[in-house]
């Protein structure tokens, strides 16, 4: 009696296995190519449902249990909604606005994490693990089946840093009206800042340059160049690729670095060595005493 039960159970499980194969196959076929590593979605799936789904959700739509949208009666654990992989729109790309990021872009985002959000750096995983995760993330949106990643924008070599370059960058910051959102001192407090929402209608803050040295999409001058030339898709930050020439873009990079008043960059050092720059930076630093008196 018991034996036949076991047998029918075995048959049942075998049937389930066979029936679920088509679903698995579609996930398995997706690959990623990062350097010498080829990522496989089936391996990435195991990792995703161990590390990622608490925030990014069972279906990859950014509705994991750690996320509560603004307006729910509980305070959310997360200040920014986790990326919705099903929408196929990504913030950090080397590719033009509206296009899919490269595998390397996605890998960089996982490796680096997102500053000022709950997304940590996953540098502790192996390179192969991260490549597998990239492959699996690409199974959530049908876009990856019907189109290729965008062509990365070309970033020309960085010209020599000069005070004139910083000054011109400052003029561009005015002219392009970056301050409307990022504020006159880059503190994320411009006149439009309080009205901003992301593409999911959730409130979003413009980047505050004064708080550190890292950007949402990287740490280097090259990363900064790419952020405003490709735009941060899914957020109010547009692409300036059509309106800023490459040499102007580098000037803007040099100026934006000086807004990071707590980060001793070569740009800030040079700018402070000029009279105009020194006055400006001094006025931007938050002054005061440890007791709180005289804060400005």
């Amino acid at each position: 009696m018991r034996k036949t039960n076991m047998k029918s159970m075995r048959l049942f499980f075998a049937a389930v296995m066979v029936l679920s194969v088509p679903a698995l196959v579609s996930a398995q076929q997706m690959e990623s190519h990062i350097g010498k590593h080829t990522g496989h979605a089936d391996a990435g799936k195991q990792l995703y449902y161990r590390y990622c789904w608490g925030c990014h959700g069972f279906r990859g739509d950014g509705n994991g249990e750690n996320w509560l949208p603004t307006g729910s009666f509980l305070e959310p654990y997360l200040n920014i909604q986790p990326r919705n992989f099903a929408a196929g729109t990504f913030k950090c790309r080397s590719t033009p606005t509206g296009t899919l990021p490269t595998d390397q872009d996605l890998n960089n985002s996982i490796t680096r994490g997102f500053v000022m959000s709950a997304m940590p750096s996953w540098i502790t995983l192996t390179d192969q693990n991260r490549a597998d995760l990239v492959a699996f993330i690409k199974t959530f949106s049908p876009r990856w089946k019907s189109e290729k990643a965008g062509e990365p924008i070309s970033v020309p070599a960085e010209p020599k840093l000069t005070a004139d370059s910083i000054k011109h960058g400052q003029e561009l910051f005015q002219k392009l009206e970056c301050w409307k959102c990022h504020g006159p001192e880059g503190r994320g407090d411009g006149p439009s800042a309080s009205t901003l929402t992301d593409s999911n209608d959730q409130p979003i803050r413009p980047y505050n340059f004064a708080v550190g040295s890292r950007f949402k999409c990287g740490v280097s001058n090259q990363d900064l160049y790419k952020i405003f030339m490709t735009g941060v898709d899914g957020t109010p930050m547009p692409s300036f690729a059509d309106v800023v020439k490459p040499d102007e873009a580098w000037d803007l990079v040099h100026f934006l670095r000086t807004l990071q008043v707590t980060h001793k960059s070569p740009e800030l050092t040079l700018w402070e060595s000029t009279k105009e720059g020194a006055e400006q930076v001094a006025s931007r630093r938050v002054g005061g005493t440890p007791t709180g008196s005289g804060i400005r």
Partner: protein
Amino acid sequence: MPRNLGYAAVLGVLAASAIAFALPSGGNVSGKVTYEGTPARQKPIDMSKEPSCAAQHPTPITTETVVTGPGNALENVVVYISAGVPDDSKPPAQPVSITQKGCQYVPHVVPMVVNQELKVINADQTSHNIHPLAKVNHEWNKSQPPGTPPFTEKFEKPEFIPVKCNIHPWMHSSFAVLKNSHYAVSSGDGGFTLPNLPPGKYTVTAWHEAYGEQTQDVTISGSETKTITFVFKAKPY
């Protein structure tokens, strides 16, 4: 001689058929879009943070989510043939355009055909970012500072796409990406006309950004003009 006559007859038939094909034969669908109930009062827009735009509006303007006219007319409704005509095999050569003027989108609703060029113009003395929040198509977001030349874009799939400028949160528009060029937008008196429809059965859809969509079936025989009306229920949200 009879042979020449034969040629003439053939030519005559060819010419007649050419004229028949060249003339926009067929009927029309025309009518009016109205609302019933009380539409939400449109909010006045405070443009004081953008003086160059505020100066263009001596009397402050309101939001354009629901624009009405006399006799309960409903403006800015996209009326289009949703079934009964084949999809356009290639998009119209002429681009459609949208202009940012006085910190408003002109026109407020922009219908276009799949893959038709859309020209984006900034006529203001301030920067705008044009941000179509597409779900089916690709979402993109481009900055357009004053004095920069127009740029063109296109959408590959049919979709109604809300559009906004994040710098000026009151600026809203809608792109209606349609499968064929049989469309019209209701004017100030709610009127619309869909011309040049060959005899046949059609489904006509009316879409409004706040009130959703309605459909009606019409049959056209010969070159008649069918008159239909759409009545939307105003939501006083």
